């Protein structure tokens, strides 16, 4: 699954730590999501989308193999 978390975060000048605090996770989790090392749960995906005030599909996209 591809995601645009990093781009969306940078658009609103938000640091990884600020995003992590906003959705109550650690900074490593944000790093792992941004680099594609970890696919977040539905709850986290919805929280991220709500933080960026975007639809889930605008941030997360399925890839061919998914």
């Amino acid at each position, binding site marked *: 699954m591809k995601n645009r978390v990093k781009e969306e975060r940078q658009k609103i000048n938000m*640091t*990884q730590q600020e995003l992590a605090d906003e959705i*109550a*996770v*650690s*900074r*490593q*989790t944000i*790093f*792992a*999501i941004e*680099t594609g*090392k*970890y696919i*977040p*749960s539905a709850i*986290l995906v919805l929280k991220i989308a709500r933080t960026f005030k975007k639809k889930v599909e605008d941030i997360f996209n399925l890839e061919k193999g998914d």
Partner: protein
Amino acid sequence: MIICKFVNKYVILYVNLTLHTENLLTFIKKMKTAILLPYYFKKIGIILIPFGLIIWCLTQLGYLNDVVRNQNGHANSLYSPILIISFFSFLIGFYFLVFVKEKQEDEFITNIRLLSFQRASFLQFVYFFLAFLFMLLFKKEPSVDAGLEMFLIISILSFWLFYVLHFNISLFLIKKKANEEQS
């Protein structure tokens, strides 16, 4: 009026269901971390492990003979309590290190925890398999009870050792990479 009652009934049902789901989710979340200890137990574990291990080794190797043995070389009343206390200090410290929560326990950490458990169990199986194969091929089977006991203790502890190492190294590496990217 009838429509109002109907809508009202379903609103109440929806609210109840939502509240129930919320409670259920909270319950599941609590259950997942129920056996984990608070973060400060990590420091206690880090102190207890070397303390227990060093005292146990020193006693077994005879460096504490002045304390635990009489002048005629027989073990005195301190010998067994020191061995028991040191061994259990090591064991309890190890337990603290295995079952301690991280500062911020989230789903990613839970995921690493699960992965570490899986790999540790696999490695333990490999250890078991190779150890038995080694004994079979070279006939180095533990001939006395103490040897067999030691082999089983090592195989049990190896699981937790693999787990602790894998979990902490994985976390350390991801933290390091995250810090490198930020700087």
